[in-house]
């Protein structure tokens, strides 16, 4: 509910304005664990994936294993789609599934608390029978930057011929970023294999064919819950609907940012579930926030309906769309200023020692100052190289990899 979301935010502001503060407060509570969590949608036309695990206590991530005897998707015509998997991850091939049928999941599992004296009978969990909600294509995926240049909103437009629709989005983000300092050269200690042989002494070699440790890629999935509905609108059409925002200090947008948004059109009941989950997760603690509440999805233990089972299983047909945002065009990113250590030129005899201490060769200037012409002659004369700490030179140390996705739009490698 939009009004309430804004109000709770607003109240935090008002409260903040009159010298209120939010403090860390961790009551000494361990809580309880062992609630069954089933995550995943029955995605027609895809291999659907599910995760089945147990909730943890507040103070630890340890949880015991669920002993899964069988996991299947059942169709209303009696056909069974067998779940394949192990441990807590299962996948079900729904590529050939008939979109006109109803589906549900059935899980036979033994929970750790069932083990004890006597015979152990698996519990049978089922989700409610659901049919596919007709999907709607993503008309556009775009971004906009606010006037003050502090926030970038990712927006989606979609529509369907129906009167009303409920939507949920998930987003897989990938971004290319750069290290702070470029390097034309790299260091090889004596004994490193190089081309056909082994280098005999400590060597600085030039990168070839555009190789570098300057550009890296990493990815993540957005953890926030994104939902929208057109119940207040005249037609089932969302135009530039904001699904999430990125701050201008977020390193994801420092160079090239890409996102694949996955949209599912869901039932009203599912939408209410996700809204409530969102409220329990984010809209808490403000002066006018609703109290969080116990939340039940559409999965029950057939022999004990009182058991709390976490998760909601919808029957969906997802659609996806990709968006790339290039900061070389927007100049949106504001780097958190951190001094880059001044480079220095060590004696060749010190190279090995410095390398062990975490220093590597670098350039003095930002490579963009040189354009595409790498001025080889400037450096490397008389074994004089600039060195800097490796954390400012090697992008991989920030968590990314050199694994460029094949669909990535930039030429860098």
């Amino acid at each position, binding site marked *: 509910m939009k009004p309430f979301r804004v109000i709770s935010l607003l109240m935090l502001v008002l409260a903040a304005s009159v010298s209120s*503060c939010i403090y860390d407060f961790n009551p000494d509570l361990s809580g309880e664990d062992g609630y069954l969590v089933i995550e995943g949608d029955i995605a027609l036309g895809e291999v659907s994936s599910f995760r089945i695990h147990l909730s943890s206590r507040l103070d630890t991530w340890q949880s015991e294993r669920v002993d899964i005897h069988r996991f299947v998707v059942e169709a209303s015509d009696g056909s069974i789609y067998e779940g394949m998997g192990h441990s807590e991850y299962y996948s079900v091939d729904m590529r050939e599934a008939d979109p006109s049928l109803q589906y549900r999941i059935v899980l036979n599992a033994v929970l750790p608390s069932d083990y004890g004296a006597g015979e152990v009978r698996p519990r049978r969990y089922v989700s409610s029978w659901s049919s596919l909600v007709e999907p709607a294509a993503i008309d556009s995926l775009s971004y906009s930057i606010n006037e003050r240049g502090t926030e970038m909103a990712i927006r989606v437009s979609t529509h369907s011929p129906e009167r009303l629709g409920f939507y949920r989005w998930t987003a897989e983000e990938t971004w290319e970023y750069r290290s702070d300092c470029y390097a034309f050269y790299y260091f090889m200690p004596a004994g490193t294999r190089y081309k056909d042989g082994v280098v005999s002494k400590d060597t600085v070699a030039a990168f070839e064919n555009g190789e570098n440790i300057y550009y890296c890629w990493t990815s993540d999935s957005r953890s926030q819950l994104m939902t929208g509905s057109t119940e207040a609108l005249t037609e089932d059409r969302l135009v530039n609907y904001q699904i999430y925002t990125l701050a201008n200090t977020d390193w994801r947008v420092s160079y090239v940012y890409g996102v694949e948004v996955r949209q599912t059109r869901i039932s009203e009941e599912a939408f209410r579930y996700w809204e*409530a989950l969102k409220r329990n997760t984010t809209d808490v603690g403000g002066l006018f926030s609703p109290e969080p509440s116990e939340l039940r999805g559409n999965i029950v233990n057939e022999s004990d309906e009182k058991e709390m089972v976490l998760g909601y299983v919808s029957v969906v047909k997802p659609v996806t769309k990709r968006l790339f945002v290039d900061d070389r065009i927007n100049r949106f990113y504001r780097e958190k200023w951190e001094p880059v250590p001044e480079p220095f030129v060590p004696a060749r005899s010190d190279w090995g020692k410095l390398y062990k201490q975490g220093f590597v060769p670098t350039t003095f200037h930002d490579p963009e100052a040189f354009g595409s012409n790498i001025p080889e002659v400037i450096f490397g004369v008389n074994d004089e190289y600039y060195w800097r700490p490796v954390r400012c030179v090697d992008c991989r140390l920030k968590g990314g990899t050199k694994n460029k996705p094949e669909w990535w739009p930039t030429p860098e490698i």
Partner: protein
Amino acid sequence: MKRLLIILLGAFLCFAPDAPAQNPGAGFGVSKVDAASLIEFIRTEITPEIYFVPDDTDKSSYTIRVPKEEFLERAIAELRNSGYTVTHYDGKYFVLPGRDIALTLPAGYFERRETKTAEDDSLKNYLGGNASQMTFQNKIYEIGDPDARRRSGKATVRGYVRDVTSGEPLVGISVYDESGKSYASTDEYGFYRISLPVGENKLGFSGYSLEDLKLDLMVYGDGGLDVVMKEKVFSLTGAVITSESMAQHRTPRMGIEKVRIQMIKNVPVAFGEADALKVVMTLPGVKSVGEASSGFNVRGGSTDQNLVLFNGGTIYNPNHMFGILSAFNPDIISDVELYKSSIPSSYGGRISSVLEVRNREGNSKKVEGSLGLGLLTSRLHLEGPIVKDRTTFILGGRTTYSNWIFNLLPQGSGYAGGKASFQDVNLGLSQKIGSRNSLHLYGYWSRDKFSFSNDTTFRYRNINGSVRWHSIFSEGHSMTVTAGYDSYHYSIEDKFNAFTAYRLSNAVDQTFAKIQFKSALSDAHTLEYGVNAVMYDLNPGSYHALGDSSLVKSRDLSLEKALEGAVFVSDTWQIDEHLTFDLGLRWSQFFRKGNSHIPGGPEFRLSGKYSFDEVTSVKAGFNTMRQYIHMISNSVNVSPTDSWRLSSDKIHPQTGWQAATGFYKTLMGNTLDLSLEAYYKRVKYFVDYKSGAVLVMNENLADELVGTENRSYGVELMAKKSLGKLNGWVSYTWSRSRLREMEDRGVSTINGGDWYNAPYDKPHDVKVVANYKFTHRYSLSVNLDYSTGRPVTIPVGKYQYAGGTRLVYSARNGYRIPDYFRLDMALVIEPGHYLKQLTHMSFTVGCYNVTGRKNPYSIFYTTDGRDISGHMLSVFATQIPYINLNLKF
């Protein structure tokens, strides 16, 4: 504090003809009338400020026929000729018999007393504050016609108690027979009526901050006695002062708390603006969910179960700036009165309490005003006569300049565009019509606006208008007719996305009328009865597109119209000096088109008192209540988005009952009142909501509601010292309030159908409100508040789901936030008391939350990746010093 009491008499004898003997064809004047009629003529035609004690031996007849401007002079001369002394002082005329009263009484009747003649000079001296007040108090006042004197039985004495300088009626003054047999208190018009045995009586008058006054009366029959009290400048020597709250030994009603504006102004509050609602929250039995909340919970009830009346009109949102300030301008109001147990049968429509806030009446002598400057607001008020002594006005306004707060926020916070503002205006007009009728007109308007980063704007406003006619038919009979219109409108505009830009609004409009009669049937029975009707016109929601590109479908929920009607009657039955009952019955019925099954019914308001002696009483009471209008909100605080909905076939009226008992003792020369009250209360059909309920713009709201019952009980202990250098109260309350869903909805039943803590269930609380006057100029106020932390729902576990960490919530309100403790202090500096000075400046320097304790408002968890962390929101997490300036002119 010393205030000198002055009483003067205006004895308007009941047998005196009411109509002035004026012959319309014969110019201005009177012919052949007695002294009483002459005075009455002067009162209606020239000045009402004439006080008269008839000389019963005076059989003179007066004929005066002169131009109007000469009339008074002539009349005075004539009266003096007949042996009266006539004194002119402070714009008033005092006409007193010129002979020693003792001469008119049987010899030896007053041999124990010293009696004095009210000479021109001695009166002047007295009024000037020079003479001993005892001189005056030892005088004997005769009531009734000595010739028609009865040997035994009872007589009724009635009159007005007013402030001598402003002419304002003084409300709630205790009037009592020294023997303890009868008791009365002045009503909102300053009017009292007391039944006394024929013969010699000692009548006491006492009121807040006033010295006790004892008058010797010789009662022959029914008669009048107007008493004027004068507020004197403070005296350092002090005086014997006693408590007004001896009142609690005189009424069988329980759980009534009254706080006057003087006390309200002394209680330190955040930002220093005297705030009636914040003071109400310092009373025992009243709780709130936290700071910056003007919603309050009385004896375990919810916030919508309080009827907030401002001059008879209902205020649906008594807050400014979402609870930082209350809607009542401290310059305009005279007092607040909270009924938390024995609710008089003339009130209804809410389960838990009635909070009455009343305007002052304007000064009837001269125009004056005040200017106040505080941290958040500035205030201006003006009052005075329009027609001297007959028509008065009081006008007050406040505005805010709080935007500076938002400018303090860092640019990067994203909130720098926020703006908050409010204004309110109060108007009161009073017109006296003769001596028996008065007409009052009240108006109130307020608006609040808050905009959030230029995209979202919240607005709400209150409009109230009411008119009240008070008429005294005869000695024991009076009537009050009140009618008015109340309106509360609320809207949000959201332009965040041009395609979904909308305006959401809702409104409550109501028209009401109430006719109330009061009849003293006999000495033992006083009857109050009347009818009350409220016509509701609610717009539960309108949702409209804003701008041309908006795709929002404009939608209006169907309007809700209904009539709530009630008849009520109550009898105050004084069996003897020990035992008194108050037996009330109200029958309410709710009529809503298309909804024929809304149950109405009787509401019983019963209470009884047994007094062992003057200062020791026990009481018991039983009340039932019904409520037909419900606030729809899913937050624990009163929030501006709350909307109101009416009972229907699907939304059952809330019903409740409360049984209570109490013990009262007054000690230390009537200055210290101790009370202990215990109560047990049940409410049914309290509205709660299903998990994930859609409350906004929902035509079928009833489907989202679940009937809930409430069980509350508690004990309230209070020691209150109303007067003296040190005054204030200390209270301790132990109470519980628990909720349970009434129907079984299987696994969806809240808390599995078991009892759970109400969000405002705070078992222990201690409150101290104290004011100490060092001198007449300096006083120190202290406010202390301790309570158990409120219950909240916190997670019991966590899990990975949908790309993030999610929390498992289970038992509702199963955890308590840490205890609440706050100490506030303020130093009030009154102006120097130079009477000739044109303006008087007073200021208050104070500090809210002196210890700087970080009191939690809420506890919540956030998740970031795999990490979860607990947080605590503290509203006023530090000391808030303030200064408030008041200029009186």
